[in-house]
């Protein structure tokens, strides 16, 4: 599926591909590329240790329940620019606790290190990766009967991003080390899709 990213240096829109089924081999290759890139940046040059610095996507794949989890990715210039792990088993929504609404839960989302401010400061390469991954997850949510609704726990550095995408903040979740739980309602998912149309 064709999508658009933004070249942050030139401001140009660039066509990229949203892949709804990233394979184990692709994840292993990407893990090597991302880990190699992270280790090439001296830690002393980082203003803070990125929150996903020690994530291992291959380990996430190995630990996931096959068939009940899906990995989405965005490919540009032959590399994955971001990945998202989606739990395909609908969960009860917190938006309306008296209804039977369900959400698909985003287990993990990360942009490639060269697209992150923490590594690149003002030289991060491509923008819109996180947004397009969330839009892909919305499509999956629709396909699984959840009407575009999503739930996730945001790491602290990304909270502002999800709020800008109309996710509602349900506050710290003590069962997840105090990470904020956020949800995107079906109506806000529709609005987000319209707002993202370029």
């Amino acid at each position, binding site marked *: 599926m064709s999508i658009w990213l*933004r070249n*942050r240096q030139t401001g140009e829109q660039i066509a990229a591909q949203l892949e709804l089924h990233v394979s184990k081999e692709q994840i292993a290759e990407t893990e090597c590329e991302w880990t190699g890139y992270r280790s090439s940046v001296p830690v002393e040059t980082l203003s*803070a*240790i*990125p*929150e*996903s*610095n*020690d*994530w*291992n996507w291959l*380990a*996430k794949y190995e*630990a996931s329940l096959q068939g009940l989890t899906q990995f989405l990715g965005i490919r540009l210039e032959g590399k994955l620019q*971001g990945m998202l*792990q989606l739990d395909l088993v609908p969960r009860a929504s917190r938006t309306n606790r008296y209804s039977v609404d369900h959400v698909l839960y*985003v*287990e*993990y*989302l*990360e*942009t490639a290190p060269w*697209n*992150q*401010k*923490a590594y690149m400061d003002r030289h*991060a390469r491509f*923008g*819109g*990766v*996180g*947004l397009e991954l969330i839009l892909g997850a919305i499509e999956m949510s629709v396909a699984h009967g959840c009407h575009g609704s999503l739930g*996730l*726990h*945001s*790491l602290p*550095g*990304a909270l*502002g*991003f*999800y*709020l*800008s*995408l109309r996710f509602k903040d349900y506050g710290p979740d003590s069962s*997840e*080390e105090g*990470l904020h739980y956020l949800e995107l309602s079906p109506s806000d998912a529709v609005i987000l899709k319209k*707002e*993202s*149309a*370029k």
Partner: protein
Amino acid sequence: MKNSNIPLSRYEQMLRAEEECDSITAGRRAKFYSPAFRAAMEALKPVHKTEAEPLREPLVSK
């Protein structure tokens, strides 16, 4: 010259929010933070020194 008073479109706002975040991440951090990373984070926390426990009399067995 760009007019900075022109309001950004919602799309531009979302891209700006993405750019401003240190990293675009979601996930339960407990699972895949390595022991080395946790140790580094612990080292950044302020240290609260505790008083040393008083020495006990050595146990002498006869």
